[in-house]
């Protein structure tokens, strides 16, 4: 496996792992927001947890994964729909950079 780890292979693993992580996070995300049905108190109880440092880091991680998956997906659709096959490695690197920028902005606003 390691022998064949070229840049686009790494981009593929990043896309798959981020997608899986987001899919696993969604039920939790929906469940917490659904608490608002039973009044603001229940929701607030969970939202106070977001002040914890490790929760802030986890949120940053989720925003990073979301941005990475979205920009990585744009790269794949540019290849498939527009035939942008040259420069795929540069585009993969750019999508990672954009994801870091977007999630970094989020993190700086969060702390």
């Amino acid at each position, binding site marked *: 496996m390691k022998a064949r780890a070229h840049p686009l292979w790494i981009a593929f693993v990043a896309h798959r792992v981020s997608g*899986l992580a987001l899919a696993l996070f969604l039920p939790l995300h929906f*469940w917490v927001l659904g608490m608002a049905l039973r009044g603001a108190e229940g929701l607030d109880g969970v939202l106070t947890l977001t002040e914890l440092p490790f929760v802030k880091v986890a949120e940053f991680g989720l925003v990073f994964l979301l*941005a990475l998956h979205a920009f990585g997906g744009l790269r794949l659709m540019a290849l498939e729909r527009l035939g942008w096959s040259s420069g795929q490695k540069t585009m993969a690197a750019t999508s990672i950079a954009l994801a870091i920028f977007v999630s970094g902005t989020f993190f700086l606003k969060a702390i």
Partner: protein
Amino acid sequence: MLDLRLYMLQRITALIMIPLVIGHIATMIYAIQGGLTAAEILGRTQGSVFWFLFYGSFVLAVSVHAAIGVRVVAHEWLGVVGSSLRVLTIVIALGLAALGLQATFAVTLA
């Protein structure tokens, strides 16, 4: 395991979600400033048809997209095949849609 129909669903939902993800991230960056409270979130979304449609369509698109994505991974990495794979895909899609629409309803129109 992915035919043209599932591929089209996967790509169309992806395209739909591009502006929604950008909007969602922008909202999060705006909303996270000064911490999160239920009052602040609900104050923004409660009674808003716009946010209901925004997050309602987001939930439907992501339910289909995630179900197909997990289907692929379940097949390639765990070897799930045949009717189990079909049932898994449908359960994930319906489960996410139900949970997500309930959450959307809770913060907008409830």
